[in-house]
């Protein structure tokens, strides 16, 4: 990659983040940043990743969306050479994960679910240690660490022990640590999980900036709005198998023909959900907190059915409105799962009808 061109496009901030300003070359003939072929991983009898065929273009942000236990983290561990597949192959940054795991590790940055830097070492010491781990020359350790601290707005905490940082700061520093060697591909495993709204929003803005600077990002998340906001394409994985991969717009379009109504009852009971799911003219019902998302054949008929069902169950409607299909609707439409399984702690067992 031409350094001058890269800097011209990214500017100094882009170079600080990593962007496409890489000195290390990818594997020979690299076209896709990630290419998997029938990638499979078992844990005993459980198939955690089931014949995954996936291609991620260079510079793309792919959101890997699925409920807890769907196989997202296992996929990241396979693609970063931490564990070996039982079947299939994958190339990351042009290198085969089985044959050249060390070369893969040089080309990728990984942000695991857990912010796992050293608690007693300061923010700067942690970044310097990561520079050392990736074999960067001594002359750039301090400079690179300070660049990243500035980029992630942690300069004033450079000498604070990692253990004393807030959750959001820890997360930002963990992402910074994954960027010290300017990786070609960045793997983010549930980066905003456990963060407060403000920190999560801040982090998403930084991920979007990395994406705009040309870093290929593989983002696993169980948060549908996060995937919708950040991703070029969304891959939905359920029980280890890839259900679909497409742009958020295309996924939404798949259920555009469906009319959808959002219903809130004064008190939402499970019996209402069950009754609606059984009613004629209702295509699907998914629950999102207190609201029920009801996909119907036609709005007029759907409203009548909802009213009739509510009357039959003695429930009072609090709010009814028609809605434009969202990625959440597409998720429900494609996976046949209740979107509630995407909440933390949800399990991929909740069939909707």
């Amino acid at each position: 990659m031409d350094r001058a061109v890269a800097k011209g496009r990214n500017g100094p901030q882009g170079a600080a983040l990593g962007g496409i300003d890489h000195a290390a070359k990818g594997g020979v003939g690299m076209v896709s940043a990630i290419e998997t072929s029938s990638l499979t991983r078992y844990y005993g009898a459980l198939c955690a990743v089931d014949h995954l065929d996936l291609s991620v273009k260079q510079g793309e942000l792919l959101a890997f969306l699925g409920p807890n236990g769907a196989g997202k983290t296992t996929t990241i561990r396979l693609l970063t050479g931490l564990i070996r597949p039982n079947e299939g192959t994958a190339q990351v940054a042009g290198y085969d994960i089985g044959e050249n795991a060390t070369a893969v590790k040089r080309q990728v940055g990984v942000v695991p679910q857990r912010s796992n830097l050293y608690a007693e070492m300061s923010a700067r010491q942690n970044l310097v240690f990561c520079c050392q781990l990736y074999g960067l020359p001594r002359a750039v350790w301090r400079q690179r660490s300070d660049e990243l601290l500035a980029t992630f707005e942690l300069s004033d905490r450079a000498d604070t022990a990692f253990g004393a940082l807030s959750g959001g700061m820890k997360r930002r520093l963990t992402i910074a640590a994954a960027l010290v060697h300017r990786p070609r591909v960045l793997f983010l495993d549930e980066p905003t999980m456990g963060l407060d709204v403000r920190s999560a929003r801040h982090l998403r803005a930084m991920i979007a900036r990395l994406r705009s600077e040309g870093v290929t990002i593989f983002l696993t998340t169980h948060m549908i709005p996060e995937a919708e906001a950040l991703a070029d394409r969304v891959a939905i994985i359920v029980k280890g198998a890839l259900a679909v991969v497409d742009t958020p717009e295309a996924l939404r379009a798949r259920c555009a023909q469906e009319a959808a109504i959002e219903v809130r009852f004064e008190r939402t009971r499970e019996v209402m959900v069950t009754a609606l799911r059984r009613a004629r003219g209702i295509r699907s019902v998914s629950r999102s907190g207190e609201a029920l998302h009801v996909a119907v054949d036609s709005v007029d008929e759907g409203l009548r059915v909802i009213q009739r069902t509510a009357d039959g169950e003695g429930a009072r409607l609090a709010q009814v409105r028609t809605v434009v299909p969202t990625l959440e609707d597409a998720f429900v439409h494609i996976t046949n799962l209740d979107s509630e399984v995407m909440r933390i702690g949800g399990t991929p067992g909740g069939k909707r009808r």
Partner: protein
Amino acid sequence: MMQRSRWMPAWYVTLKDIRTYYLKPPLISWGMLFPIVLILAFFLRDPGDIRSAIPGLVGMTVLFGATSVEAVAITFEKRIGAMERLLMAPLSPWALVAAKALSGALFGLGTGLLTCALGCIVWRLSFSPYVLIVLALGSIAFALLGVVLSLLMREVFDAMTLTNFFRFPMVFLSGTFLPLGDMALWLRVVACCLPLTYTVDGVRYCMLGAGHAHFALVVDLLAIALFSVGLFAAALALFRHRLEDML
């Protein structure tokens, strides 16, 4: 950016471990106090016999120094997720095992040399440069033993218990307190299977003279080197086998 030598990242893991675990006031104090207290206890028990006891105490301090943190470091890092970070880095398993063991070996060597120095300065025991080789090899073997024990256990407390299960019998069975020649035959056979036996015997050879040692120095050195190679192979195999437990 230019990539540095493939050895350097492993060396920085060692330096990080030294800074994170060993350069802590409690451990430094322990490393200094342990040999002094041991020597003092033996001196008070029998002042006339302290010279012949010192090689055993040197071996014992090396064993305890090299395994003190090493036997729990990996277990601890597994728990806090730090091992996952190391595994994500472009380091081969053997480089990582070597890096983890080296910090413990250096600490063990330091505590052993301190005990040695006390023996040489206070009780005029002779100092041979070969003792450095014996202590260095012994430290490496014991640090690798610590890595093996650390890899075997999931919990820090279990790793500590298991380490003591190995350390204390080894101290009593390896000629540390009782010369090998005075042991029953079956105990001597057991002693020959322990790396501490050859470390203590080698130190005895170097500090007290060939007449006080059971084996020739070359036998001691070869035996400790073989134990080191065997323990490294065991640590590497366990490391690969337990890789997913560390994530």
